[in-house]
């Protein structure tokens, strides 16, 4: 359950105690260079042509040049459990798309990527869509706030978690057309059906922004992947999250997502 870690400002406590005596600085570490890996990011949504497969390569941590190496000329095919087959075409370098594919709830989707003979496969099931019923915004009342700073707002989502069904959710937040940072996933272990009121953690908006929030129904493998990616970055047990991609030297994920989207204009609140 993510909400717990996100809300527990233990770091604030450490910060207060050691404010005067601690020291944070950027250091140059001599890090081993890992073997270059293939990066696959692939989503099929439940609307026509709303899909993408991005192919690129990893680079060393200390390599601060712009951009990543993209992979062109790969063979990208998505099939479903009814035998339909969709071939993706490369729109821009490393970005593949299929305008005729529309994801359908209940179907399993199979991805095959062939990069000069090296094959990566994956599968994902499209779970039933859960409607994002409404959004609300709330002024953030944070300790040590400077009253002269412009106010910031957080968003809460309202949706109905289907009872007797194991749901997994991903929430994406956008501002001015750009996706906000952070991976938000949720399972219904502690919801068990009923109305869910769930805050969009760490994503803040300013007055008069338009918040666009997506509620995505995802499968368990995607839940585990994004849950792990969020907590594996600088934790005590860092590592590459378990992926649903099958192949050698590959990182990333493949997801079939049912999407519900709402927007909200952030009106000033007292």
């Amino acid at each position, binding site marked *: *359950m993510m*909400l*717990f870690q996100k*809300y*527990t*400002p*233990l770091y604030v*406590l450490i910060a*207060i*105690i050691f404010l005067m*005596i*601690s*020291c*944070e*600085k*950027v250091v*140059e*570490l001599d*890090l*081993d260079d*890992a*073997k270059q*890996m293939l*990066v696959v*990011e692939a989503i099929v949504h439940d609307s026509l042509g709303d899909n993408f497969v991005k192919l*690129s*390569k*990893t*680079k*060393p*941590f*200390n390599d601060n040049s712009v951009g*990543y190496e993209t992979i062109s000329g790969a063979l990208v095919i998505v099939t479903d459990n009814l035998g339909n087959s969709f071939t993706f075409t490369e729109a821009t370098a490393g970005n593949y798309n299929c305008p005729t594919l529309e994801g359908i709830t209940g179907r399993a989707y199979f991805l095959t990527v062939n990069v000069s003979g090296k094959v990566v496969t994956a599968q994902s099931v499209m779970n039933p869509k859960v409607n994002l019923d409404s959004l609300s915004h709330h002024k953030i*009342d944070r*300790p*040590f706030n400077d009253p002269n700073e412009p106010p910031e707002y957080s968003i*809460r989502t309202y949706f109905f978690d289907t009872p007797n069904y194991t749901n997994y959710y991903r929430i994406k937040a956008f501002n001015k057309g750009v*996706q906000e*940072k952070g*991976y938000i996933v949720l399972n219904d*272990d*502690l*919801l*068990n059906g009923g109305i*869910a*009121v769930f805050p969009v953690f760490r994503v803040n908006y300013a007055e008069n922004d338009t918040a666009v929030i997506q509620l995505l129904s995802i499968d368990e493998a995607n839940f585990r992947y994004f*849950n*792990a*990616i969020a907590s*594996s*970055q600088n*934790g*005590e*047990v*860092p*590592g*590459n*999250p378990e992926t649903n991609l099958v192949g050698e030297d590959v*990182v990333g*994920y493949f997801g079939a997502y049912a999407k519900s989207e709402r927007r909200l204009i952030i009106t000033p609140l007292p």
Partner: protein
Amino acid sequence: MLKSLSFTLFLFISATVLAQEKFTLSGNIKDASDGEDLVGVTILVKELPGVGTVANLYGFYSITLPKGKYTIQYKYLGYKTIAFVADLSKNIKNNIQLVSGSTDLNVVEIIAEKENQNIRSNEMSVEKISIKDVSSIPVLFGENDVMKVLQLLPGVKSAGEGSSGFFVRGGNSDQNLILLDEAPVYNASHLLGFFSVFNPDAIKDLTLYKGGIPAQFAGRLSSVVDIKMKEGNSKKFKAIGGVGILSSRLTLEGPIVKDKSSFIISGRRTYFDMFLKLSNNEDIKNTILYFYDLNLKANYQFSDKNRLFISGYFGRDNFGFANRFNFNYGNATATVRWNHLYNDKLFSNTSFIYSYYNYKIDIIAAGFSINSQIQDFTLKQDVDFFWNGNNKLKFGASAIHHTFYPGEISSTGESVGDSKIENRYGIESGLYVSNEQKFNESWSATYGVRYSNFTQIGPGEFYTYNTQGKATDTTVYKENNVVVTYHGIEPRLSLNYVLNESTSIKTSYNRMYQYLHLLSNSSGGNPTDTWLSSSNNVKPEIADQVALGYFKNFKNNTYEFSVETYYKAMQNTIDYRTGAEITLNPKVEGELLYGKGRAYGLEFYLKRKKGVFTGWISYTLARTEVQYDKINKGAWYPAKQDRTHDLSFVAMYDISERLKISSTFVFYTGNAVTFPTGKYVIDGQTINLYSDRNGSRFPNYHRLDLGLTLEGKNYKMVTNPETGLKEKKDRRIHSSWNFSIYNVYARENPYSYSFRENEENPIITEAVQLSLFKYPLPAITYNFNF
């Protein structure tokens, strides 16, 4: 049952008595100044070299000898030796009070004679710390802490900068059993691990067992830290206290009935938040940040044969921002003990123990709170049977009822509904017998065996998981139905071969079972870590350890030297899947991986015990590795607590009777960690790419601390009105000042590293090092007693 048992033993004794007429000398040993029980006093028979005994945990001793006249000597480090001529033509009871002899030079020489308990005793891999010894060692913020001193000993490693957590011989921090008056303390630290919960004024002593663990202890793989609270002064009322930069302490102790009954009450509270009140900022002003400890103990001697002890501990950390957020956590323990003497050879102790830990987080702004706790009830029976001069038998039984409350969310507002992770229940029980036997002048051994059992009981829904960690099946158990039972035989053995009065070789073996496991994602431990019981999925952890040691005293026991080597094999150890959710996860058992571990090392220890210059050097060369099928492709790799070199140097020098200086220096190899080796982008954000778990290292850690203690004059010069001469007169109030500097040469030891995108330019990724102490950190403490 006990009656019939003692009857059987009685028959045994009668049989021996018939063979040769023997009589028993027994009694209690106390400190003459304050009436505290003296634990571990050596009792020797001058006429029979090599024959003797050692007083037990409650200061009781008993020795059985053939009829005759003997000179009995009572010897204890730092006390004057008492000799007593016993005419053993009948059983004799002799209660002894020993006088502290640290100021009398002649006495020091007398006791020096037989200060070779470390050579004679079968115990190895055991460290004892007396509170009196630790007060002058410099520590962080001037807060005296036995747990910090523990970390300076061989085989014991600090869990991190400033942390009171520790690792023993490659074990994890949850593999240490920390007992306060027999009650397990589930989270022994305050303020996120920087201070231990043990208020030095309330503590009498600490014993650490890191190998050859005696059969009466069980439940953790790596070590037992047995901490005893003071009983309270049974002679006169006393107050002890101190004022430091971080906290103040006050202890009151005294007799309830002189020489029969005493009490102690001891409190400590930090006042960091008082300084915050001075701030102009409303938010800082309303910040709550403190911890406190309260220790209470009383004992009453009903008769020569019956004595009752009641002790308790309560401590809490509080942290919050008014009206927004509140986080508090702490332990509570209570122990009721009844000492009973069945006869002059059979000493019994019955304990009832309660232990509790919880944390509570109120997120007032979001309208919900989180609560988690663990609670134990223990019933324990231990018997010491002082069979004869060569055999000392111990046996007993214990049963613990555990209740685990992993977590509950209760909502006060609209956001987030109520939910609760099911409680878990377990019964941990054990039976043991152990004998300390002296075969001849050279050979002696302590051998025993323990049977331990853990039964997980309902009610509840129990899941089974597949190899991916996905719950595949659910079984419902009713209240008190058995879910699963584990049990095992735990042999314990220590063997001692005394080469001469100053040299011995010892070896030991022990097997330990651990049925409780701490879920923690930080090495030092967080207050929100929860304990998990062994279950249908989680098997008990098992460790086998062998150790071999050489012990030598030099210069009339002024120097103690030891070298020990150990090998420990561990089974069913626990680690987590990458990115596991371990807090408030009802299916947390699916996030666990099970593997094995091995730890081996060589420990050197040289200590100077006497004189104006005292201290020690300890050095450990060690390796700790683990193996999990799903991590690093199943290869063995270094555990995070693997440190090749670990060196501690402690020196204390008495410049004069009133002025002492001290210094500590530590150096150790950095922890094994996982640093990223590459990066890539997911959803427009940079993600670190990792290769091997624990494939990198922190830089080496080193630090120097200095301390200075200035004792106030404990006398004043008064003119005697009769003689007109000036005379020394004792002051009622004794006081001292303690000054210390932590991290003298301002070494920026890293506390953590984070790897992140640069704030201005997300294309650039950078490694950011956090060091807690950038400057030398001075502290000052004023101590008093009257």
